[in-house]
Structures are given as structure tokens and as C-alpha cells.
């Protein structure tokens, strides 16, 4: 199972008190399952993660994802730029 970096921003980073962690995740999975695994690990942020999208290597992904060792994942909660 590949070891990946997972990044947190804004409200989620504050809730977890963590900007980044390294996790071991299944190689062939899907974005919903990845977010569910992360939420399971951080029950105090389950509600925030439920509204998030997953990005892998700076691109939004949905459905099936293949994770490689060293991939950079980001949990993108609803954005508020502009």
C-alpha cells in the first residue's frame, strides 16, 4: 500500500491542528473511500470532511483513483476565493 502525503487547509487544518500528515492508503480505491478513511481517522472533523472534495497531485479527482507512493493528496473543503 502506497504511502501518501495528505494536506489540510483553512477550517479543516485548524480543526485537526495539522497541516499535513503521511498516510498509508490502498493503491486502487476511489475518492469517496479515501475521504471516508481520512474521516475515520479524524472523527472530530467528520462533518467538515463530508463536504470536501479530494485532490491528487493538484487535480480534483472523483470516482476511481490510483495512488502512487509519494502522491500529494489534499482535502478541499468548500472554497471561498474571489
Amino acid at each position: 500500500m502506497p504511502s501518501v502525503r495528505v494536506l489540510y487547509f483553512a477550517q479543516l487544518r485548524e480543526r485537526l491542528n495539522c497541516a499535513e500528515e503521511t498516510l498509508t492508503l490502498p493503491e486502487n480505491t476511489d475518492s469517496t473511500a479515501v475521504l471516508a478513511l481520512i474521516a475515520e481517522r479524524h472523527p472530530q472533523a467528520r462533518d467538515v470532511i463530508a463536504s470536501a472534495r479530494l485532490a491528487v497531485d493538484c487535480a480534483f479527482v472523483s470516482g476511481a483513483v490510483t495512488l502512487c507512493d509519494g502522491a500529494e493528496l489534499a482535502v478541499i473543503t468548500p472554497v471561498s476565493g474571489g
Partner: protein
Amino acid sequence: MIRHAALHDGPLPVAALTPAALIACEHGAVASFVGVVRNHAHGRAVVGLAYDCYRPMAERVLAQLVVEAANTFDADLSASITHGLGAMLPGDVSVAIHIASAHRVAAFAACRHLIERLKQDLPVWKRERYADGSEAWLKGS
């Protein structure tokens, strides 16, 4: 044809407000959007805000949105899109979008498209500070 997409540390400078760099005689129409930090939001007095950002992804998203707008509205358009980051005060400029195209329908449509898509997909988050001393991360915008 000019294509410019960038993040900027701090409020945008006054030079970012003008589409002057995009003016060209094959483009008869320039549409622009400038976002300004307001002193009120959701019925509350805002005294300042700060933008958090996933920077490498945000740079990539800005560039992709420009390509998307060109593919959708006018392959020959010129575009400039810049988003500020970090701490800002009311009246500061947080985002500037300029689109030059042969005709105004495409220029307006591409400009509007870019700000709407930016607000959907740009990994940037706004934390507002209020007059009563409280702060809050905005959810969507």
C-alpha cells in the same frame, strides 16, 4: 494573444485593475471583473480577512480555467486573472480578471465564467474578521 494567470502575495496593486496590457486592435471588446474586500458580509461588519491557499494547485487551476474559457467562448481571447493572498482590509482588491475578445458577447461571457468557476474550484479559503472581534472561515461564497 496574452494569457496570464497568477497568484499575488497581498492585495492586488492598482496596476492589476487596468486591462491596458491586453488592448490589441484585433480585440474590439474587453470585459473585466475586479473583486474588492467589503466592509460588510452576511449582515456583519467586516474589519479584515485573510486568504489561505493550496498554492501549487491554485496556480494550476487558474491556468486551467483560462484554457477552459478560451475553449468555451473564443479560442483567440486574451486573458489575465490574478488572485491576491494573505491579509487584506476592506477596500483592498482580492481578484482581477480581464478578457479581450473580438466581440463583447464572448468577452462578457468568458469574464463571468471565470469568476464563477474560480469561486467553485480555486483552492483558496477566506477567513473574515468581524467588528465584534470574532472570526470565521467562509464556506463557499
